[in-house]
């Protein structure tokens, strides 16, 4: 029996009296692609925030590769191999696409305190940055300031930054949000390709059910801060509680 790469037990977060996440336990196995779905306000982003170190949990533990990472700062968690993307575009608009990727690579290679060596002369870093961009089809835009990239390209760059940190566990927060159907298909293909390399474990939140059923090995449903159901896509599709949560009541964040 292999060890889970991510093991969350009894994770909870309360804001005042509101329990945004309420005692969630979840295990993710290496190389698995797990989709985390649920209505708006179900607590998915809060859940991500606690795993990635942006928020400290009120209760529960997070273990990554057997190591307790509960409450570690984001940079420490990132260095261990957990990287996340953001729901909104969160790229460095004043930097070029290549520099965006370099920021992540610099941390990876411990060059962040390299004071006098021009970043533009670091051949190895540049080549590596270009390789990451190539993988996402962004190579032709390497020298473009990220601020003027199209919305879809910014979303891709967001993923490029995540991949550049060489994560073992990738948390994608609505990677196709706001994309055109064609861009969505492109990103879906891309993520599937990455998953098939066997280098990554994905935890993905997504509203587009086509994307979810297309990518996920396993689906986890959150509702009102709790785990409602989990199972294979087929099991989830036919689950009554899930249908009720989605169809019975409309709630918003």
């Amino acid at each position, binding site marked *: 029996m292999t060890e889970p790469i991510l093991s969350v037990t009894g994770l909870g977060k309360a804001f005042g009296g509101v329990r945004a996440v309420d005692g969630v336990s979840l295990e993710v196995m290496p190389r698995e692609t797990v989709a985390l779905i649920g209505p708006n306000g179900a607590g998915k982003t809060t859940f991500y925030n606690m795993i*990635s170190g*942006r928020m400290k949990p009120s209760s529960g533990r997070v273990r990554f590769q057997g190591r307790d990472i509960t409450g570690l*700062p*984001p*940079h420490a968690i*990132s*260095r261990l191999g957990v*990287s*996340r993307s*953001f729901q909104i575009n*969160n*790229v*460095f*608009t*004043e*930097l070029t696409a290549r*520099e965006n990727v*370099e*920021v*992540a690579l*610099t*941390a*990876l290679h411990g*060059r*962040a*305190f*390299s*004071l*006098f*060596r*021009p*970043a*533009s002369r*670091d051949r190895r*870093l540049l080549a590596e940055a270009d390789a990451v961009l190539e993988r996402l*089809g962004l190579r*032709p*835009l390497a*020298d*473009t*300031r990220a601020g*003027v*990239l*199209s*919305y*879809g*390209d910014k979303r891709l760059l967001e993923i490029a*930054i995540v991949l*550049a*940190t060489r994560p073992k566990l990738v948390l994608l927060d609505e990677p196709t949000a706001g994309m*055109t159907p*064609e*861009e969505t298909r*492109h990103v879906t293909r891309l993520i599937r390709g990455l998953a098939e390399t066997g280098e990554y474990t994905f935890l993905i939140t997504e509203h587009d059910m086509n994307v979810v059923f297309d990518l996920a090995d396993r689906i986890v449903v959150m509702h009102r801060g709790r785990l409602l159901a989990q199972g294979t896509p087929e099991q989830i599709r036919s689950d009554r509680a899930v249908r009720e949560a989605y169809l019975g009541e409309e709630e918003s964040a």
Partner: protein
Amino acid sequence: MNRNASAPSASVAAGAAARPSGWRLAVPLSLVLLLAVLAALPSFAPYFYIFVVTEILIMGLFAASFNLIFGYTGMLSFGHAAFFGMGAYTTAMLLLHVELPLVWALLASMATAALLALVIGFLSVRLSEVYFAMLTLAFGMMVYAVAHQWRSLTNGSDGITGFLLRDFGLGLDLQLADPAVYYRVVLAVVAIAAAVLYLITRSSFGLMLRAISENPERVAFCGIDVRRHRLAAFVIAGLFAGLAGALFAPFNRVASPDMLHWSQSAEPVLMTILGGAGYFLGPFFGAAMFVLLETWITSYTEHWMLFLGIALALLVMFFRRGVLGTLLDRMLRR
């Protein structure tokens, strides 16, 4: 190619419109020319201008050190004079009591200023935006108060005077008491310091700072300890501000509490915004405009503060990215 339909022609166009290659040579060439003119200045300009340009160079370095944390890292410090003053006092006291060659006093000043920046920075960089600005202002005022009150050490409001400039050190036979010689020393030191600062802004570390200024949280999620980088930038900025102060004390023949006053902290802020925080040389340009305006207006009226204020307000209103920044933006069509 998997570029999809919505891949913007705008993105590609903007990438292609990067600066024309002719400018690549123009910048270093004009810099060399400028340095040559500055080096030759004492041979044709009267002493008055040598004094003015010496002050511009020192204040330019002070402002450029400030811009490492302001323009590059996105932290607005209102206490930068603490390090300038620390450098000035260190040099003045070493020259007075120990009679060291100048170069060692300069290095010692950088060390003491960096140490002070380490302490103040350690307590300040965890805060962001306006809280950081207020805390640095508060620490700056505390350092001022110490210099003002601790009469036995600092001689209070009179400051440290009566020190003599002997030799420069390093076996160089320089008559530092001659303003033209001192000016050239300042020019050389400032040029070297500026080159080092520039190198830092272009390094991987500099890239981290620029990324932090835009989105510190995203940088943290890339695995980078944002606070340590902010602190490092703060200490480097303090170190170079200390060097500027160390050059200023012998130039003014005094190290006084004025150099630590919060209004002294406002000067690099004004100079940087005036010149343009987006370009490395912006603060130097701003310092030149500031000192020249001040000199020029004081020669006409004693109400110089009023007119300087009006001139600064107009310049800031019409040159949003600073005078040099706006001009360069226009030339390079950024």
